[in-house]
């Protein structure tokens, strides 16, 4: 059973990633695809943090003098994920602003019908 316990976080993270990719691959509505994208990004962030986790470690903050530095969790992935979350927000806000413009131009958000640019 402890194999499952060890990989539960990875399973959760990659579950989210695969659901996100699958939604983007299959769904036709542009907003639904962007939702898939945001789920994908959350999954990636979860994966990054779970890479840096140390079993029964503590948060990497010396809030009170009692904490010693031995079994602290890895701070580097947390720094990366901080950046990745904000990048995710930036991309999503840009995507959704284009969704508004798209709706004004095409009158629909169905990506199957928005294909003037082909061949």
């Amino acid at each position, binding site marked *: 059973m402890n194999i499952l316990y060890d990989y539960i976080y990875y399973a959760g993270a990659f579950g989210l990633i695969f659901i996100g990719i699958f939604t983007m691959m299959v769904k036709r509505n542009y907003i639904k695809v962007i939702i898939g994208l945001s789920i994908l990004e959350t999954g990636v962030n979860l994966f990054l943090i779970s890479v840096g*986790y140390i079993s029964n470690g503590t948060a*990497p903050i010396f809030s009170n003098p009692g904490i010693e530095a031995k*079994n602290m969790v*890895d701070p580097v992935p947390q720094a990366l994920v*901080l950046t990745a979350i904000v990048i995710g927000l930036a*991309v999503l*806000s*840009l995507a959704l602003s284009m969704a508004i*413009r798209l709706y004004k131009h095409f009158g629909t958000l169905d990506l199957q019908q928005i294909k003037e640019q082909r061949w």
Partner: protein
Amino acid sequence: MRKCIGIILLIIIAWGILTSLQTMPFGVSRAKVANHYINNGKDETGAANIVTSVVINYRAFDTLGEVTVLFLSAIGLGAVLATIKTREKRDTEKASLILSTGCRFLFPPIILFGAYIFIHGHLTPGGGFQGGAIIASAFLLMYLGCHGEKRLNDRCSTFSESLGGLAFVIIGLIGLAVGTHYFLNNFMPLGKFNTLLSAGVIPIIYIAIGFKVGAELSKIIDLLMEES
């Protein structure tokens, strides 16, 4: 058709990832670089929150890039949404008295809380990004609560945004000019550990980032809400 192709491909990728995850057992400490940050992060940067010291000092360039990305998305949003000339008015009924006064009452404490977060960035968990987000949610509350009469002052948000970014770059350049001639170097004295004015440049940068992120995110919300 498309669904089953997708599933098959994802299974292959999952299998690939599984094989590579075997070499990364969960919860086992492996990172050499991280041990360096944890062991002598305290005395090199003087910040209690190691994550903040990594974000601002060790990997400062990423955060500079990060701030640019946010700046970019606000500008990009403005560029994309600016192409529509006609602004047709939406008929929104006024919020009830209780709601608007409640919002106006709640606005300052949230701003204060956000400020607390990014000022104590190097001591308690949290920092410029989280504080800025909270400030932006305060502005969001104002938009939801009393829609129409309260709007973000565009000039001062541009000011705080640009000044925040400029402050960050100028501090970096000062680090290059003075001290040990490295870009984004922590040239200020580290001060007493675990006190407000400690950890050299970190609080200054985090306050600048706090202002910048707060202004930017509220500008994004303003652009989206006021777009039509």
